[in-house]
């Protein structure tokens, strides 16, 4: 209690300092007056009485100082004094302050941005009640998160570990609210979705499990708050309104709270619709097909007291049951739990790996910044050795001086931290509202929260401590007598100092960053010019989903043929082909195939898992995919003729052993149909640019219809010019059909997005690293030149050549630069293995990369040592020697 009181008193006294000082003055003055009154009463004249009273009182200032000390607050007060002194010192050397604050702002800003993204996407859970007990279910060795609806039902009904299990899918639908048909992103969810998550409606009501009564029985919509706000203008009367989804009437039930934006952290849907209406929403109903794993994710809250191990064991026993009961469809049914926010390992793994890598690099940047500042501080402490010696000689304790230096370091680090944080918060805010890919619900909600602020604060203080500690030994070993006598610290030139080590480390980090960003840039450039298996330049894409405008079943190919014929007549169009899903579009459709002699079609016996594309006869022409052997499809490959396929080279090697044997051979699909291969095409890129060759096959869309339609329109000349005509042709076909029109190059943005982001962030970090290295080398070189200016003057007076002087001045800095660069380059070569997972063909064994790094480091060295070299050369021995 007393300690608390005393603390409160001290703090209060600090804030009432000036008030207290005035009060103290008044009290002491009153004392003198009272004494003078007494003296006056005993017969002394007033003026004389006051004079004597003052003499009797003694040293006013001294007693006031002592009183103030006695009244408490000395520690805080001296801290305050340190602070003011530090600010004064920093104001006196604005160049130093600017460099130090900017360096730290960069380092801390980079760290807060990377941490902010990591925090929002990996650390922060989904915005649902009790997020800590919410788990998604992964399946099999490769941790797939997709499941089939019948499997989901079995998992839901048979498990004893989860309170409830909900499932959802992401899809696009056509929404018509009466005026303009537009496409919207939705989550198709099971009826129990909101109840299982524990979300309460903001407006109206949600749909429930009880609303589901078989296919197309629950035509309901729950809007997200954001979509309600932007598309319905916060109209509370929207509840109960009927709108058209894919030309079917759906009723709006309610609006979800603003903070609940779906169950994927980076995908924001527009609204939720029950999945039992899948046929209306996607044009097909696969909810009965156990082999069709079209459910994106299954998740639920664990029951209280159930551990994750128990839950996994429970699920695995259901898996064993499923394998036994449905051997044709279910294989490899082992399960694991994952956090649902990033769709398990599918998005989560590469993202986590990349962000962790980035965080490490950002940490290295900050370390480099600290090394830099440490060097600066040490140099500054050496320059201030006279001041420090004087203070020591006047009786200041080394502890007091160290505290002063640390206060300076803390002031700089907090200023740098505040600036860096300000920049990173702005950047994070910009990232959050950014829609990286148009026409997709992808967003990066990474606004800074308390975690980010705390991390930035801690980082600033820790780095302040790190670089503040560098000059400590120097101060402790200062001998005031020596310094004042000889003018500066006569430090012995040791062979390798801590400062040298810091600089080498820093240069190495910089070289590492430059290497990895060059590797990434090269990889990106190469992937832009690699063979995709199609030619994106000079092609327009018309993308639509025919189910959005009410086409289904056999009507699909008919409409698609009408579209192809109409588009072919547009002037400037060379060829038109249709495909259900473009290669390199988000996720491809995969399926299992079997060799022709396999009769037991259980998953374990599959020959391969391959990509499937459903195309029109002229697709290969339009996409410029080379046909290596056989024939493309014709309009005669329809329902009434035998099943045929065109396969790629990789498929042919994998299934038939050699590309030459493919044409004319047969294989089996998972439903047992025999399919004959009629053509062989080159292998391309299907899922990502960084992938290894994958087997793929093509079916004619007349034999396997699909409502998803992307028309590849190959044009002469500029695609933009033909675009307008294509657009009006499409509108002429069906005015109510929503579609998007883009060039194929624009579409590829999405495929290039990960490697672009990787390259961009590495490039930014690389540039920062380079900047820090320049300042570091510059500081070192400038310092060594200024320390040896006198020696150089003498040498020049004695006839030394410019080259020799330069060597003496900069030799050490350049040697350190060479050592650091080599180390960084080697590290960079090792680190690039990590990169190759994200960036296509990222390899450091590339003369351009190696040469680029060497050139970059040499340029950095030249830039950094230019000014010190000039200074060393401009030494005028006469003036210099006279001065000293």
């Amino acid at each position, binding site marked *: 209690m*007393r300690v608390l*009181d*005393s603390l409160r*008193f001290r703090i209060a006294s600090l804030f009432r300092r000036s008030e207290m000082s005035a*009060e*103290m003055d*008044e*009290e*002491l003055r*009153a*004392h003198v*007056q*009272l*004494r003078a*009154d007494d003296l006056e009463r005993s017969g002394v004249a007033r003026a004389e009485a006051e004079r004597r009273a003052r003499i*009797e*009182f*003694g*040293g*006013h200032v*001294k*007693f*006031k100082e*002592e*009183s*103030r*000390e*006695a*009244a*408490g607050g000395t520690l805080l007060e001296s801290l305050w004094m340190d602070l003011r002194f530090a600010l004064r010192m920093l104001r006196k050397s604005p160049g130093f302050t600017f460099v130090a604050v900017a360096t730290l702002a960069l380092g801390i800003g980079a760290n807060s941005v990377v941490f902010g993204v990591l925090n929002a996407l990996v650390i922060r859970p989904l915005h649902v009640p009790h997020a800590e007990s919410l788990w998604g279910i992964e399946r099999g060795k490769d941790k797939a998160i997709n499941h089939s609806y019948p499997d989901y039902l079995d998992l839901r009904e048979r498990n004893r570990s989860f309170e409830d299990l909900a499932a959802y899918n992401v899809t696009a639908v056509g929404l018509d609210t009466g005026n303009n048909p537009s496409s919207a992103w939705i989550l198709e969810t099971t009826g129990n979705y909101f109840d299982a998550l524990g979300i309460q409606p903001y407006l109206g009501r949600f749909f429930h499990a009880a609303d589901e009564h078989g296919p197309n029985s629950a035509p309901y919509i729950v809007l997200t708050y954001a979509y309600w706000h932007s598309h319905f203008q916060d109209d509370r009367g929207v509840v109960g309104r009927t709108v058209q989804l894919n030309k079917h009437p759906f009723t709006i039930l309610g609006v979800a709270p603003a903070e609940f934006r779906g169950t994927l952290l980076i995908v924001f849907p527009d609204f939720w619709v029950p999945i039992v209406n899948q046929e209306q929403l996607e044009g097909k109903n696969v909810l009965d097909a156990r082999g069709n794993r079209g459910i994106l994710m299954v998740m639920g809250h664990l029951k209280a007291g159930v551990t994750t191990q128990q839950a996994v064991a429970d699920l695995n026993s259901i898996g064993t049951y499923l394998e036994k009961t449905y051997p044709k469809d279910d294989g490899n049914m082992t399960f694991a739990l994952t956090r649902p926010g990033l769709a398990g390992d599918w998005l989560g793994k590469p993202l986590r790996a990349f962000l962790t890598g980035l965080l490490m690099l950002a940490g290295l940047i900050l370390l480099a910044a600290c090394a830099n500042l440490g060097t600066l501080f040490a140099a500054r402490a050496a320059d201030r050795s006279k001041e420090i010696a004087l203070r020591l000689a006047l009786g200041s304790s080394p502890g007091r001086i160290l505290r002063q230096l640390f206060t300076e370091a803390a002031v700089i680090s907090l200023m740098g931290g505040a600036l860096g944080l300000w920049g990173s918060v702005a950047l994070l805010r910009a990232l959050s509202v950014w829609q990286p890919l148009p026409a997709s619900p992808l967003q990066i909600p990474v606004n800074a929260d308390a975690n980010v602020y705390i991390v930035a604060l801690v980082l600033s203080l820790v780095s302040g401590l790190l670089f503040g500690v560098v000059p400590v030994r120097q101060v402790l070993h200062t001998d005031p007598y020596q310094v004042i006598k000889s003018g500066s610290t006569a430090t012995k030139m040791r062979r390798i100092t801590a400062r040298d080590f810091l600089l080498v480390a820093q240069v190495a980090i910089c070289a590492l960053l430059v290497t990895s960003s060059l590797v990434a840039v090269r990889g990106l450039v190469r992937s832009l010019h690699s063979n995709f298996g199609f030619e994106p330049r000079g092609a327009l894409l018309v993308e639509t989903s025919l189910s959005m405008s009410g086409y289904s079943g056999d009507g699909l190919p008919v409409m698609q043929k009408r579209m192809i014929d109409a588009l072919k007549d547009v002037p400037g169009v060379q060829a038109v082909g249709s495909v259900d899903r473009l290669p390199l579009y988000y996720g491809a459709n995969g399926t299992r195939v079997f060799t022709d002699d396999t009769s037991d079609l259980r998953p374990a016996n599959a020959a391969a898992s391959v990509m499937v594309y459903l195309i029109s006869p002229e697709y290969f022409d339009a996409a410029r995919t080379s046909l290596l052997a056989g024939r493309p499809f014709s309009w005669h490959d329809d329902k009434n003729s035998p099943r045929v396929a065109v396969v790629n080279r990789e498929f042919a090697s994998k299934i038939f052993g050699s590309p030459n044997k493919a044409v004319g051979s047969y294989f089996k699909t998972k439903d047992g149909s025999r399919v004959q291969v009629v053509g062989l095409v080159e292998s391309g890129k299907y899922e990502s640019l960084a992938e290894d060759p994958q087997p793929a096959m093509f079916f004619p869309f007349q034999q396997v219809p699909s409502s998803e339609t992307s028309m590849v329109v190959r044009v002469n000349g500029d695609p933009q010019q033909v675009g307008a005509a294509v657009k009006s042709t499409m509108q002429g076909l069906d005015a109510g059909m929503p579609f998007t029109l883009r060039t194929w190059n624009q579409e590829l943005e999405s495929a290039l997005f990960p490697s672009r982001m990787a390259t961009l962030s590495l490039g930014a970090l690389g540039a920062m690293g380079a900047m820090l290295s320049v300042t570091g080398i510059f500081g070192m070189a400038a310092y060594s030149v200024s320390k040896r200016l006198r020696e150089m003057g003498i040498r020049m007076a004695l006839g030394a050549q410019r080259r020799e002087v330069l060597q003496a001045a900069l030799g050490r800095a350049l040697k350190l630069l060479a050592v650091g660069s080599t180390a960084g380059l080697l590290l960079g070569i090792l680190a690039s293995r990590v990169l190759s997972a994200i960036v296509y063909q990222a390899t450091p064994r590339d003369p351009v990369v190696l040469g680029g790094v060497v050139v970059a480091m040499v340029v950095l060295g030249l830039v950094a040592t230019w000014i010190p070299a000039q200074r060393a050369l401009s030494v005028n021995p006469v003036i210099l020697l006279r001065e000293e």
Partner: protein
Amino acid sequence: MTDQAQLLPGTLDLLILRAVSLGPLHGYGILLRIGQISGNALLIEQGALYPGLFRLVRQGLLKASWGTSDNNRRAKFYELTVAGRKRLRQETANWNRLVAAIGSALGAQAEEV
């Protein structure tokens, strides 16, 4: 003046507590009171009183408030807190023991040892 005794270190606080224990006083009043109760036998530098006063306030032994002196000057008055009164009793007892011990030590005759 010359026959005044130098104050032993640490005794000023005790004297202040004792002086104030007889009623609230301002700084100058405390000095006068100490002179009065000690028979003007102690030499105290006037300004040296104040660090002692602030120390005692900080320790919670005294509390201070502004008031008006007999001749109508604004001055700060000090009085004992409960803790201060307790401390005074303890310190007085300590002092008496110390004086008795030192007195008997100094007054001891050779044969008594």
